[in-house]
Structures are given as C-alpha cells and as structure tokens.
C-alpha cells in the first residue's frame, strides 16, 4: 500500500495524526458548496424580515427584498424607473449590512441611517430616488436578521397577529351580547311605572313638540290601559349580572370605539416557562369558566330561550371539565417561549403533560447548538437530535400541531406558523437558530440552512386539522430534494489544467459538522501533491451505502479564503454521525410517504406479478409462428459489417478549419463548414435527425447514421452556400450508390 494512503487510512480509522496531516483550521476552510456565499449582504435572500406593525392583513411578515420589490413594482416605471430601482437596491444592501452588524431595528430608522451612509446629502439623484420610494412605502415594522433572537421575535409577532384576530372576534361577540342584554333591561324599564312617569314621557318626546301633549294624562292612560309585561325580578337580576360579568372579563382588553385598547389590566399570556404558563392557566380557570358560562347564558337570554327550571341547575354545576374545545378556542392562547438550550426535566415533563392535556399553549423550543459537546467526552462529537425527538414524541400524541424548521427556513414556513397559531389546540414549534453564540466564520443563516440541507434539522409540519390521515397531515415538502438521502448540487471548479470540471456533490451531515470549529480534530487537510487515487469523496462513499474498502479514504471538498480547493480527510466518527442522521431522515421520509417501505413492498409484489403475466404472454406469442423477424436481423448484420461509426462532428470543431475543403480533404466522413451556415433550413428539412443546429443556430451533422447517403447528397446539392460535404457512403449496400457517388463529387 502506498505510504500516503497508509497515513490517511490510519487517520481515518483511528484518528492518529501524522505530522504531514495538519488539522483543519475552520475559520479558514469551509465546505466547498458554501464557497459562493461569503458575503450574504450582497445576496437578495429571505432575510432580513420585516415584522409589519399594525394590522397588516394577510401578511404580517414579509422579507425586505419582497417588500421593496412590490413597492417598486407599483411605481417605478419609465425612464427613471431603472435608476430608482438601482438606488433602492443599494439601500437594501446597506440595510442588510446594518442588520448583519447591529441586529434588529425599525425599518423607518434603518432606512434613514442607511440613506445617510450612502451619502444621500451629496447626491441629488439618490435623494430623489429614495424620497420617491420612501413615499411609496406604506408600511413600517421591525427588521430582524437571521440570528438567535429571530425565532422568539417572529413567533411572538405571528402570535400577536393571531390574538388580535381572536380578540376582535370575541369582542364583537361580547359587544353584541352586552348591547342586546342592555336593551332587554331598558325595554323593561320603559314599560314599568317609572318609565311611564310624565317626566320620562316628556323626555322621550323631546323638545320639538312638547307643547302638543298633556304628559300627565298620557301617563295615566298608559298606566291604565297598557299590559303589565315587565320582566320577572329574577330574570332582570340575572341579565344585569351577566352584563356586569361580560364587561369585566379579564381575558381580552375591553373594546372601545377607537378599536382594541392595549391590554392594560388584563392578563398577560406570554411566558418563558411551561410551569408558569400551566400554573397561570390553572389559576385563571375559575374565571375562564365564569366568562364562558356568562357567554352561554347570555346567548340563551338574548334568544329568549333561558328556562330557569332547566338551565339554572346546569349552569350552576358547570365546571372546567364541561368546556368543549370550541369554548376554550374563544380565549387567548398562552405563548411559551422556552429559553434556548436543553430543557430541564421538570419543564420537559410539564410540556409533554400540557400538550397531551390539550392546554391552549403555543410553545417554542429553540436549539442554538446542534453539536452536542456536553453529551460525551472530549473526543466524542455527536449531533444533538433532542429537539427532533421531542417533535416526534409530540406528533405521536395525534392532536398537537407540530412544526419544525431551522430559522433560515422560517420565512418559507410562515403559513405553517400562522396555521399553528390559529390551530384550535396546543402547538409545538421546534426551531434551530444556527447561532450558537460563539464567534463563527459562517453567518447563522448559512449554518441554519446547512442544517436543513444536511438533514440534521429537517423542516416539516404536522397539522391535525388538515385531514384524518398522515398523508394530509404531515408535510415534508419544504426540504430540498426530499426524495434523496442528501440534496445533490452541481459543483463547478477549475482543475489543475485550468479546465472546468463539474461534479455532483451532496451536502451531507459531515459537511455540516465541518462548518464547526470543534470538528477540527476529526478532519485532516491533505497536500495537493498527495492526492491519490484511493481517495473517495464523502458524498460518493455515503451514496454507495458501503463501508470504505481498506484502500479507500473518504475526503471532503473544502475551500479556503482564496477559494482554493482542498481535500480534507474525515475520520470514522463523522461518517458514523452522518449515517445516524440519514437513519433519522429515512424514518421521516417514511412518515412523509417517500420511499415508504410498505408501499415499496406492495409495489415490488405488483411488479413481480406483472412480470409473471408478461412472460406468460410472451410464451404464448413465441408458440405462434413468427413472421417478419428476419428484417431486424438483417439490419443488425448490415450495421456490423459497415465501418465503425466515428464520432459525429462536434459543432464549432470545424470553426478552426475555416476553409474546410482543404483541411478536411481526403476524409471519408461527411462534414459541414458550420461557421459558414446561413441557417436557411434546407438541410434540416431534409432530415432533422442527421442535420441539427448548434447553439448559434448553425448546422452540423448531428448523426451521420440517422439518414442515408442519398439524403446527404441531396442536402449538399440544395445547400445554397455549398458547405455540406457528403464524404463517402457509410452503407455499401445502399441502392443507387454509384450514381450518388458521382453526384457527390463536386462537393468533396
């Protein structure tokens, strides 16, 4: 075995490092597929996001690029349109830079700062463009980048939007009930003795015609003649107490004419611990029951269907256990933003208990660090998949909404977030932020996206409201190329002979781990001079599914700061992690109906059955006398005797020949002086498989075997610029060959 290979294999198997295998200094190296994403501020992507203030209607969250694009779309036309668009593009980039450096801020403030940094004072045109764009931008909001604060801010924002909707609905209902109950009381009063007193009657008529009536007489007449239909005392008392109870409810801020007042005095529903949220829920339960009871009773009262004999007893005994989910759905949900990091056992147990008991909580479990350093000793490195396990456990409870996604992907999943927030029941959101809080050479956005690509933190949603079966509830489609183990990407680079080389590389879990500086001792950089044939890329090795042979070492493509490619040998521990990651992904795939083992087996059985049927059918056919089979055999024989097919003329290859006839004279092959072709369609109409157009729409012989020599000669004759040269016939048995060769002579 080669000495270099021995060194590599030793490192791969045992981690023993020889001096010529330096460890990988991660700030300098990054996985090759990430080479193009050094400066994220130059790339228009989903971040930063704008959390739109106020009642934003259908889109409370929009990406900055999309917001600016739609603003520009509405007004930037005409001669200055491009200029305005270019200036706003510069501003967008500046804002993106600001957010990357300093974190979140209000859009209007960031706009101002960015405009000043671009030198808006000195540049009239720039000022003009930005003023126009600013005037057209009708919304404002907080701009947030992709970092560790994002999940809580984003979820809080979506939660608030959902609660606003809920509050609106509840308040309109309560206002309606209170108004109609009050009317009952007022109507009762108008019919009573006090309501028919002369002074009240006079007040009811108003000042315009008060002289036309004798209110004393009117009062007497009414008191005598009108029927006595006042409310019974018990009902009046009940109605009044209902009004009081509804108006004093502490769950939603009271509705005012000016809209929804800020929640002063009402309960708070935002928690950072499940225990606290659960306790608050329990403590408020009696009040919740009271309000729910008041609403139900008020509805009956308003409809005039409240029967004391039947309903009194029922409502007195009404307890928390009698509340249906739609009753609970009227009230606000509890937003629980758990602090990042592993959950304490108490919190975890309480969370599972609360979710299974159907408490109205929306919980965010955030992971900041996917690499679990605490799990093992110094030398052991594993991927932290606890959040995934939590999600799986919760899905097994069947009626909890579950959504998992890395932060980078949250904008794509925002409809899922909104569905989860409006789902009538508990919901769990597991998010990986990509921002471990340690200095890193990769932006959190990239790390989070890499976690998605590498299947270490897949994105999925489980929506129990979407249907009765897994196929409609579970959605895995948010992942890139979900039917593969790892998404494969085209990777183009320049090789040592300065030629473009293309490879399909999968972004595996090993690539993800290599992004982290703690993986340095598992990786070893190799010198370019010592790249040997026994090296196999990690993605190829993992794709083959086999363990490396003793003479193979897996390597990873990585690039340094100058975009120079390096091969980095990975040790066995990393590959083991990648395989574990793939196993987890496979189980998710099965849930999502991709490569489902039951379906695959059923398919295999069906295929087998059909094959048997087909072969039975074939046997019956062979038994009957075959006709006409001789012809194909003859063709095959003819092909075997004809000269071996040479490669067809590559478009552009004859370009260098220029004067074609001289340089290619003596050749037996047909050819076209492609650069002189004037695209007149003559030859392609004779045979479009033999003659084809290249990327400049000029003809070349795509396949000399796709037609006859006669067609070649006819094409040569009809070509107006005489650039087709038919060469010598390839099939000696073609009829009329002598005449054709004669006709072809002028074109040789």
């Amino acid at each position, binding site marked *: 075995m080669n000495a270099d290979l021995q060194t590599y294999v030793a490192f791969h198997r045992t981690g023993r490092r020889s001096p010529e295998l330096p460890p990988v200094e991660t700030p300098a190296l990054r996985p090759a597929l990430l080479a193009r994403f050094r400066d994220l501020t130059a*790339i228009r992507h*989903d971040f930063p996001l704008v959390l739109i203030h106020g009642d934003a209607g259908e889109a409370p969250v929009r990406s900055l690029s999309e917001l600016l694009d739609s603003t520009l779309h509405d007004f930037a*036309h005409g*001669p200055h349109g491009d200029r305005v668009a270019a200036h706003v593009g510069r501003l967008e980039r500046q804002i993106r830079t600001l957010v990357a450096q300093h974190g979140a801020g209000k859009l209007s403030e960031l706009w101002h700062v960015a405009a000043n940094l671009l030198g808006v004072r000195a540049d009239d045109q720039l000022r003009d463009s930005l003023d126009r764009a600013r005037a057209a931008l009708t919304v404002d909001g907080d701009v947030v980048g992709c970092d560790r604060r994002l999940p809580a801010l984003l979820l809080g924002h979506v939660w608030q939007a959902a609660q606003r909707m809920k509050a609106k609905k509840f308040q309109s209902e309560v206002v309606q009930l209170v108004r109609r109950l009050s009317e009952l009381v007022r109507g009762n009063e108008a019919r009573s003795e006090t309501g028919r007193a002369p002074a009240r009657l006079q007040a009811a008529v108003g000042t315009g015609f008060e002289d036309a009536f004798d209110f004393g007489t009117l009062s007497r007449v009414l008191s005598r003649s009108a029927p006595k239909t006042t409310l019974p005392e018990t009902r009046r008392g009940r109605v009044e107490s209902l009004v009081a109870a509804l108006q004093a409810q502490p769950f939603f801020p009271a509705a005012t004419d000016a809209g929804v007042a800020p929640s002063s005095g009402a309960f708070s529903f935002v928690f950072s611990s499940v225990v606290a949220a659960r306790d608050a829920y329990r403590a408020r339960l009696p009040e919740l029951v009271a309000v729910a009871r008041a609403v139900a009773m008020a509805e009956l009262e308003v409809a005039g269907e409240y029967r004391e004999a039947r309903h009194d007893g029922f409502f007195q005994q009404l307890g928390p256990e009698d509340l249906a989910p739609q009753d609970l759905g009227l009230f606000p949900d509890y937003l629980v933003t758990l602090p990042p990091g592993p959950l304490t056992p108490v919190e975890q147990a309480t969370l599972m208990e609360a979710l299974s008991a159907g408490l109205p909580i929306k919980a965010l479990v955030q992971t900041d660090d996917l690499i679990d350093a605490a799990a093992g000793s110094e030398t052991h490195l594993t991927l932290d998949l606890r959040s995934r396990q939590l999600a799986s456990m919760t899905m097994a409870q069947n009626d909890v909404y579950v959504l998992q996604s890395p932060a980078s992907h949250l904008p*794509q999943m925002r409809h899922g977030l909104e569905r989860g927030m409006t789902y009538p029941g508990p919901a769990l959101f597991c998010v990986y932020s990509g921002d471990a809080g340690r200095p890193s050479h990769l932006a959190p956005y990239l790390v989070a996206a890499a976690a998605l690509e590498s299947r270490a933190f897949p994105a999925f949603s489980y929506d129990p409201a979407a249907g009765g079966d897994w196929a409609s509830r579970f959605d895995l489609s948010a992942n890139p190329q979900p039917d593969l183990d790892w998404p494969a990407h085209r990777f183009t680079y320049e090789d040592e002979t300065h030629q473009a080389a293309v490879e399909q590389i999968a*972004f595996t879990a090993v690539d993800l781990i290599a992004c982290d500086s703690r993986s340095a001792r598992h990786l070893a950089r190799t010198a370019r001079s010592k790249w040997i044939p026994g090296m196999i890329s990690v993605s190829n090795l993992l794709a083959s599914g086999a363990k490396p042979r003793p003479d193979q070492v897996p390597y990873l493509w990585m690039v340094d700061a100058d975009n120079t490619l390096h091969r980095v040998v990975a040790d066995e521990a990393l590959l083991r992690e990648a395989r574990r990651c793939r196993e987890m992904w496979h189980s998710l795939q099965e849930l999502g109906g991709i490569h489902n083992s039951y379906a695959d087996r059923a398919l295999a059985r069906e295929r087998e059955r059909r094959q048997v049927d087909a072969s039975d059918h074939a046997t019956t056919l062979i038994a009957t006398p075959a006709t006409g089979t001789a012809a194909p055999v003859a063709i095959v024989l003819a092909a075997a005797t004809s000269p071996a097919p040479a490669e067809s003329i590559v478009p552009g290859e004859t370009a260098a020949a220029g004067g074609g006839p001289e340089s290619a004279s003596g050749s037996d092959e047909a050819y076209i002086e492609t650069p002189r072709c*004037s695209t*007149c*369609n003559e030859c392609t109409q004779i045979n479009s498989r033999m003659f084809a157009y290249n990327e400049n729409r000029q003809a070349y012989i795509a396949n000399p075997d796709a037609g006859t020599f006669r067609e070649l000669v006819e094409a040569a004759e009809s070509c107006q610029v005489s650039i087709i040269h038919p060469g010598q016939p390839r099939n000696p048995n073609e009829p009329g060959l002598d005449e054709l060769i004669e006709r072809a002579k002028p074109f040789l």
Partner: protein
Amino acid sequence: MTTAATECLLQLYDERHELEDYQSGVPRWCTGCGDNAILAAVQRLCRDEQLKPEKTVFVSGIGCSSRLPHYMKTYGFHGIHGRALPIAEGVRMARPDLHVFVNTGDGDCCSIGAAHWIHALRYNMNLTVFLHDNQVYGLTKKQASPTSPKGLKSNTTPRGSYLEALNPLTVTLGVQNVSFVAQAVDWIPEVLYDIVSAAFHHKGLSFVRIVQRCPEWLPQLLEPFLHDPMKVKLLHHDDGLAISPGIAKVYKNTQRHDPADMNRAREIASGVDPIPVGILYRNPDVPCYEDLRVTGQLRTPDLIRQGLEAELDKFTVWPQEGPAT
C-alpha cells in the same frame, strides 16, 4: 425576486438566457430564405449581449421581413406598411430604457415608408435598423420593388422594369445627421453577426442594409455572388470590422476603409459588383434626438392616465355645452 432559503444555496444570479429563450415559434419563411439567417444573427446577438427579453422590442412594418418580431420571444410590434420607423421612434421616446430594433423590407422602407426613413435618419434616435433587402415584393408573390434591378420581369413589370434600382446606401449617406451605415449579406453569417453586433453597440440610428436571397421568386439573382467569393468585397479597418482568418481564407477580395471617411464611403456605396460588405460610415458624435428632447419627468401610471384623459377629453361632448351649432 426573493430567493427561497434552500434555493439560495443552489441558484444565484442564474438568470442567463440561452438562444432558446429568444425563440418563439417556427418561422414561416420559405426554406432557403435569407430572413432565417438574419433571425439567427439577431437571436445570437440577444443571447451574447444577454439582453433581457422584457427590455427588448422589435418593431416592423409589412412584408416578409416584418414577420421577424413574431419569432422573437421579446416584445414586438408588427406595425402597418411603411410605418415601422415612426412606431419605433415613439417607443424610444416613451421608453428610453428599452433596446429598440427595427426590421423593415425594401418595399416597406424605400417605397411607402421612404419619407419616414429620411427623417428617422435625420432624427438619429438610438435605434438599430435592419433593412432586409431581397429586391422584390415576396409576400405578395413577386412585384418589382424600388431596389429591383432594371429589367426585372415581375407581375407588375411583365416586360421588365424600366428604372434603375434605388441604392439605399447612397440615399442614407446623403441625409444630414446620419451616424451609422453598414452593408451585410445573409450568406456570410460570421460577418453578418459582426455587423449586427457593431450596429447594436452604436449609439444613434444604425442603418444596416442586408442583401438577402429570395429563393422563391428570384432564385438566380444572387447566385453568382454566392458562388464567387471574389464578388464580395470585405471592408476592414481598426475602427471597423476585423476579418477572421477563416473568412480571409475564403473571401480574398478585401479593402481597407476608415468608417470616418464619408466621401470614400459614398464612393464605395455606389458600387454594386462586387458587393461591398462592412461598415461604411460611423460617426458616434452625432447627437440623438431623444437626448435633445428629454423631459426628465417620471412616467408614473398616474401621469400616463392623466395624459390619456386630457387627450380623450378633447373628444368628449360635455352636456352643458350642447350640440355644436
């Protein structure tokens, strides 16, 4: 467009347009028609310059040549007979951000549209004009056109045409403010492409006459020129075309000509045999009409609506005014 998070890792700046992105439909020109070669050259230009389809417009009049916008997957305007140039000027004025090309024929440009042709040259707006000159009316099945050679027998001239052919090049070179004049032939695609490309890069009206075959009605007319390379004279200069070694091998009849020299250009332009091919005249300093007349006003949808309303109001009958007496 916003890039999706996962796509961000894959496709960036991946907005390259291939030749197919500019192709639309199968041309209905006759097999062997020179229009095919012009279409191919123009599509290649769009691809090589990566012109955005939504920022490119082809305007034409009437005739075989004027079917070209149908085969381009860009904006297009198949106008009325002889009026390709005024339409293109309007487009240019309203949308200076677009690349405007004009495809016109010998009948369209030199007969019914001749007045517009003269004044378009004088305006010198930034347009690229291709005169597809097949020297016959082909779409209406063979009538003599202004550029038909004397003696041509056609449906309108059964005893042969009486007049000498009009020379579009000398006419063009005689108009004030002319800034770019070139001639190409459709059967030398490489030179055709180079000239089309040079015309596109010229700021101002670039006028390219393309001598093209009509295999249906005049199959013999250009036959001698096709088969004798000496009957094509290639003009070359450091400021004009460079002739590639491959072309020089076949076309040995070449001449050095400085495109700044107007007198020499007029002299060359009057020759018809051999056909001069190359850039005859170029003057980048002639001002463009749209630069002289630019308003600087942002054309918002509101402004356009207001303008339209004002124009339409001129034709509105207002109730209080009553019928005209």
